[in-house]
Every structure is written in structure tokens, then in C-alpha cells.
């Protein structure tokens, strides 16, 4: 299927993509347009992030739909790879090669001349802080070292587009901070376009404000992160309150304007309160508890996780 003409300013233009592996659906009528800059792809495990990247890189082809990457179709288009650097989330370094041998192979496959290649390798391993381990076999690297070497391989040929699939996984907090700073620098100082994926929203938030949420193979929301947060805030929050004297508290809560509903759970000492303004609720709760003369032993929100956000966004 010939992909429709996409806007030249779009990095990725995916329209109605579907990809399935037998009975398992990887992408389901997936549509997304990504502009230049840093874009975060956020989704829980198994949501289709890696499948999307494999389609972008031409490693697999979609069953239905079309996609262009930098204006070209990626399937069977090896020329496109000179403009893309990919850091996969899985272990992919050849275990019997040293870091240097691995980077030399990548560089030569990207037509880099020997002297320029040596210089570039030195520069890149300095950036990812792998100079000391460069001549060790990659099979002996720690998880964080492997991650850094993969990023080095992705950066080596100075691509226009960097695709980083869960680059922070397996790294310690210090390395995470360095990686995040590196990613921001690569965009700001070197004008690389970057697509980075994670299942942790706040990590992406530290790198970029431009995100796309993916859930069960579908793009459920995309845009500025603050707009998505507002979406979350507009949907009623469910909060569980447990304790003694909750009947009196329930009566008082029903009079509050931001309370949508109050329901008793299986045990009469447990309430589920649905509120439209969680901030007002939490601010006013101590006074209400005092008025009801009840004791609250436990309280928690059911919506403080990505899963709940996705469930809301997909209308479940």
C-alpha cells in the first residue's frame, strides 16, 4: 500500500497501523504523528511500544495501514537507516565482541572511514562514559554498561533520528540522571530528533513535555503532558476511606459539591468516594472527619497509576 503523502515536517506519520502476531495484536488501528524534537512514548508493558519501533525501523511490516519515517516508507528501505540510530530495550550486543569491535562494525556498516571512525568512537564512548570498558567483551558488561554501549552504537553515525526504547531500564539513579541530561543535550545542542519510550511517566516528563500514550496497541492520547494531566484531573477520582464511624462521614461528604458519589464497600467500615476535585477533597477532609467524629485508619486513591489513566482514556 503506497503511504499517503505526509507533511515534510513530520518525523513519523503512522496511519491506521495494525500489526498482529497470530492471535496477539501488537498494534491496533494505531495512528500517530510525531514532530521534530524529543517525543516520549509512554505505555505499560505489552502496550505495543516495541512493536511500533520495529515497524518504524522496517524490522517488521504492518499488516494494515501505512507509515512514513522522515518522509519515506521504512519497509525494505535500508537507505533510511543511515538517518536513524536505534537503541533497543533487549540485549542485542554480540557477546564475543569487545565494545570497540562492536562500534567498529557499526561504524563500517555506516561507511565511516577508519581514522574518522576511531576519532568518533573515542568521542562517543567519552560521552557515554564507557572508555575504560571499551576493550572488554560485551558479554561481561553489567546491564547499565550494555545500555550505554547500545546508546553509543545508536549515536555513532550521528543520525537525524534517535530511537531509544526504554533507555533507562536497568540503570542506577545516577546513570539515569546522566542519561536524561544527555538526551536533552543531544536535542538542544546537536539537533537530534529523539523518540524515547518508557512505562514510567515521570521519567519521560523529565526529558520532554511532548508525549504520546499508547495502550493495548492504540495511541490513546498525544500532545503536551500538561494537557494530558488536565484530562486526568477532569475525570473523577476514586478514593477509598476505611475506619470507624464512616456512616456519619458519608452523610457529610454527600453535601460537598466536589463529591460525585459515595458508596459503601463490602465492609461497612469502608467507603469509595468519587470526587471531581481531588485537591479540594484532600484539603477539606480533616475538617470533615472532625465534624463526623469518626476515625480514619486507612485512605488511598485508586487512580494514581498509569493503568487507571489508560483505562479512563480508553473509556473502560
Amino acid at each position, binding site marked *: 500500500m503506497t503511504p499517503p503523502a505526509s507533511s515534510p515536517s513530520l518525523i513519523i506519520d503512522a496511519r491506521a497501523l495494525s500489526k498482529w502476531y497470530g492471535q496477539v495484536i501488537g498494534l491496533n488501528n494505531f495512528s500517530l504523528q510525531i514532530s521534530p524534537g524529543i517525543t516520549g512514548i509512554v505505555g505499560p508493558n505489552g502496550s505495543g511500544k516495541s512493536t511500533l519501533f520495529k515497524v518504524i525501523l522496517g524490522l517488521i511490516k504492518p499488516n494494515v495501514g501505512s507509515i512514513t519515517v522522515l518522509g519515506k516508507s521504512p519497509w525494505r528501505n535500508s537507505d533510511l537507516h543511515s538517518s536513524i540510530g536505534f537503541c*533497543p530495550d533487549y540485549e*542485542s550486543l554480540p557477546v564475543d565482541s569487545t565494545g570497540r569491535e562492536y562500534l567498529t562494525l557499526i561504524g*563500517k*556498516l555506516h561507511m565511516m572511514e577508519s581514522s574518522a571512525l576511531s576519532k568518533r568512537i573515542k568521542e562517543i564512548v567519552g560521552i557515554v562514559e564507557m572508555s575504560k570498558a571499551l576493550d572488554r567483551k560485551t558479554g561481561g558488561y553489567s546491564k547499565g554498561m550494555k545500555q550505554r554501549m547500545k546508546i553509543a552504537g545508536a549515536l555513532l553515525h550521528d543520525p537525524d533520528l534517535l530511537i531509544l526504547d526504554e533507555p533507562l531500564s536497568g540503570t542506577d539513579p545516577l546513570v539515569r540522571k546522566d542519561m536524561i541530561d544527555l538526551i536533552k543535550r543531544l536535542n538542544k545542542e546537536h539537533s537530534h530528533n529523539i523518540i524515547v519510550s518508557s512505562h514510567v511517566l515521570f521519567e519521560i516528563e523529565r526529558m520532554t513535555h511532548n508525549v504520546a500514550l499508547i495502550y493495548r496497541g492504540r495511541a490513546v492520547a498525544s500532545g503536551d503532558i500538561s494537557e494530558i494531566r488536565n484530562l486526568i484531573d477532569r475525570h473523577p477520582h476514586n478514593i477509598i476511606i476505611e475506619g470507624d464511624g464512616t456512616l456519619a462521614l458519608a452523610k457529610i461528604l454527600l453535601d460537598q459539591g466536589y463529591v460525585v458519589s459515595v458508596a459503601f464497600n463490602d465492609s461497612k467500615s469502608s467507603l469509595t468516594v468519587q470526587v471531581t476535585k481531588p485537591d479540594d477533597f484532600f484539603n477539606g477532609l480533616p475538617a470533615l472527619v472532625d465534624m463526623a467524629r469518626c476515625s480514619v485508619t486507612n485512605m488511598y486513591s485508586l487512580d494514581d497509576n498509569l493503568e487507571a489513566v489508560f483505562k479512563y482514556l480508553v473509556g473502560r
Partner: protein
Amino acid sequence: MDLKRVIVGVSALTVHSTKKLLLGKKVFITILVALFVAAVMGYAGSQSRDPANEGTNLMDVLILFFFMPVMAMIFGSSLIRDEIDDKSITHIATAPLDRAFSYVGYYLPLAIVVSVSMVIVTSVGMVAFFGQHSHGGDALDIYIAFVVLVTIGSFVYSALFLAISVLFAKPVLFGLFYAFIWEGFIGSLPGAIQNASIKHYLRSLGSGWVDSGDIHAWNQASDAWGSGVVLLGLMIFFIFFGAYLFREKELA
């Protein structure tokens, strides 16, 4: 198509794969096979009363039609398949080199390493057997013929097993089926059915080139030149077929 990029890319991959084959654990298989052949042929040589014929038959049975396809299978079935399974193929598949050319970058070192290994094994076997007999001229003729045969066979079998490794998830099992059941059984049946095996054409070449042993006396040989053309055609077919499969393969 940027020819320079193709040449540089294929060269880089060839060097990488050659190092992997020569410096990997599988090189011990070559050493073990060589020692084994030396021991077997050395003993046979010490007992032999008709060296030319018996030596030729041993080379035929042991090296040409047993160890050569097995070595090609062991090396060829794992070269690309191991990289697909451990996902290190990602870096090749995301390089700016058409996968069909990447495939050639895998095939060339495979064929060269297998043929060099088999030439070593053949040389060791020849020395172990004929070194005990003074058959200078004849032995040299037999040696040269078998070196050429194992080289041709290595290139053809490597092309076959590399293509099989892209096609099947468990290429070793299919390779075993092909090498022992197909070639061992079908290749031994009388009549035209045995033409459906690489073994038949190699044997036909050997029948024309070697002047001793059962291979020389084999009465079902095809024309030597025709067999050479068929083998070349098969090699080219398997390379193109494997390259096509690799290009179309989804690397999930």
C-alpha cells in the same frame, strides 16, 4: 544503489563473521574432526593392502559425504540463526545496507571457513593414510581431486544450509534430515531419483576426476561438466533464495 556502500558494508560484515567463525568455539569442532580423521585414516592406512582404492573410498565415505555436509550444517545452520535468536542481528538489520547484501556478507566467510576447514581435514587424512605408503604421484592426484571436490561441496552445502537457517527456526534438525535421510537414503537409491541430491553431482564430478576407488567405478554418474554446471547453478540458486528470504524476513 551505492556500490561503494555495498562493498564496504559487505566487507565489514565478512570480516566480522570470519572472526566469529574462526575464533568461536566451533573451531574446536574442526580440530576434533581433523584429529579424528587422522586417527581413523592413520589406522586404516596401517592396515591397508590396496592403498589407492581403499584410501579413495575412505576419503569418499568419511570426508566428502559425511564430515563435509555435517561441518557445513554445523557452521551454516548457526551463523545467522544464532544472531536472530540472540537479537544481535538488530544491528545488521538496522544498518544502511540492503539485507540481501548483508546475506552475502554472511555467506562468503561461511563458505571460505568451511572449505578451508575441510581442506585441512582432507590434508590431515591424506597424510595420515598415504604417508604410510609410497604412492607419491597417485596420492597427489587423489589429494588434488578431493581438495577441489571438498571446496566445491563446501560452497554448495554452505549456500544450502545458510538458506535453511533463515527459513527454519530449528535449522539443525532440518539439516540433519537433509544430510542423512535425504542424501543418505534418496542419494543411494538407483535411478533418476538420486539426481535430486547434491551428493549425486559431487560424486559425478569425482567419478570423472578420480582414477581409483568405488567413486571412479560408479556407473550412475552424470556428465562431469554438466554436474559442475548444476552445482554452480544450485549454489547460485541457494544464495539468491536465502538472500530473498532474509530480505523478506520479519525480525520480531
